[in-house]
């Protein structure tokens, strides 16, 4: 499977990373090197093998669905690049 420039641009878009037009050919080529390496996986017979979902066979812990923490608006906003009136501020989303 080979990645062309159009696919590389699409992947960059999906990943929300801006890639300049001039950098796309090099990116596509890097993708192809890595994917070429990954292609080896096609040699493995995986018939009847379930995809691993848990590294160690353990049942994930559950807890009661109740509030255990909260009331820390100032702490939550303390690292925000732009916070106003108790909210995260972002560019206008809806016209």
């Amino acid at each position, binding site marked *: 499977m080979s*990645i062309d420039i159009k696919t590389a641009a699409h*992947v*960059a*878009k*999906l*990943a*929300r*990373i*801006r*890639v300049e037009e001039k950098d796309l050919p090099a*990116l596509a080529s*890097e*993708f192809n*090197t*890595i*994917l070429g*390496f*990954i*292609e*080896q*996986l*096609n*040699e*493995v017979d*995986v018939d009847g*093998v*379930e*995809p*691993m*979902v848990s*590294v*160690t066979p*353990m049942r*994930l*812990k559950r*807890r009661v669905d109740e509030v255990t923490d909260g009331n*820390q608006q100032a*702490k*939550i906003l*303390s*690292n*925000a*690049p*732009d916070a106003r009136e108790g909210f*995260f501020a*972002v*560019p*206008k*989303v809806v016209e």
Partner: protein
Amino acid sequence: MGDLNKLTIGAARDKLRARDITSVELTQACLGAIEGASALNAFVHNTSEIALERAGAADQRLAKDDAPGMCGIPIGIKDLFCTKGVASQAGSAILNGFKPEYESTVTQNLIDAGSVMLGKLNMDEFAMGSSNETSTYGNVVNPWRRGDDTADLTPGGSSGGSASAVAADLCLAATGTDTGGSIRQPAAFTGITGIKPTYGRCSRWGVVAFASSLDQAGPMTKDVRDGAIMLGAMCGHDPKDSTSADIAVPDFEAALTGDIKGKKIGIPKEYHMEGIPGEIEDLWADGVAMMKDAGAQIVDISLPHTKYALPAYYVIAPAEASSNLARYDGVRYGHRAKLAAGEGITEMYEKTRAEGFGHEVQRRVMIGTYVLSAGFYDAYYNRARRVRALIKKDFEDVFAAGVDAILTPATPSAAFGLGEMNDADPVQMYLNDVFTVTVNLAGLPAVSVPAGLDKQGLPLGLQLIGRPWEEGDLLNAAYRLEQAAGFVSKPAKWW
């Protein structure tokens, strides 16, 4: 009282308890060593005020005679761990200025045990790298050099700052994290001990996530005993991490008897790889002889899917990274790009991530995005997860056949020069993890022990892989290997 910074944890603990030294003296010795070692670029955020305050408190606790082993021990913390009120950037520009309002569970455990944080340690950006050349803070330099050659070498990665700092005696020990070999490879490159515990042994809470099903924190120390002491302080069940194991933490240090008579040590034939230097093969053969001399039973084993571990890893780790790193969007923390007139929220995301993420991180996020995208999810991601199940089964089969531990080289080479891999394609760099990555995929504990020097005078490490949750037995085997190898070399100080 000079050179206190050169002590091991074990020796310092005994001197602290005997009142021969104080934690403040020990901490000041380390702070002095750090100040004189800026050429290594290992410590990137110094916290000397916090350190002296905690050292003072540790001395008071030691005076009451009930202090745990880590009490008063000065350590470095990898920048991947969130530390309250102290910069925690995962080596990335996208987290510029980020100061967490909370403390990771592992570092909190270390605080509770009385240890003293000296500062934050450099690392590959988001732990993605094997040479510590992807950090926003710049490269870390290995204190070891090739004989009289003054060329700067890599300390390995991603825990390169931790490795360099411990090897250069800037701290008694350091935390690391290991997703594909990021504790063991740098430990091997710098002549120190690195432990990657069983998946679930250390809480991941508050550790900046790279690939959640592979990430584990562990200690990087001057010897195996120190690793046992520090690991005991780091791990334990944590309700805040649902994959944290709710099982008792044994006394790892008590397991270090050095007696491995009758233990079955497996030697996997698939780890004899093409292109591996003769020196590595020789070191491995020496290690086998040492274990045999110690009374262990050496058995040849097969781990048939070894070859597919790296390709499976380079699907699974980027896939999980693309998901984990989606949170860096310029809204809640860290860097936000400046927008031009007319640009909206999508441009904000795209520019922020292009400016904030380095090249390797961008590449991995995009590979992960691709293998998870519609139409490729089954062909890449699900296939990799199936192969992962087979890799894990390879290990389960040999353990079921009675093997206690597996001995392999830790790395396919000694430390290489900074910049030497610049022109190589990314896959060449990924090959650094060829002996270590299987362990993360299978969730097993493993330890890298320095075992010798190559022709150029650089350290080489051997790796022991253990059964899940049996770190005590594993460390005992490592302890025996350490005794037999008798590795005592230190880098000559040039910095």
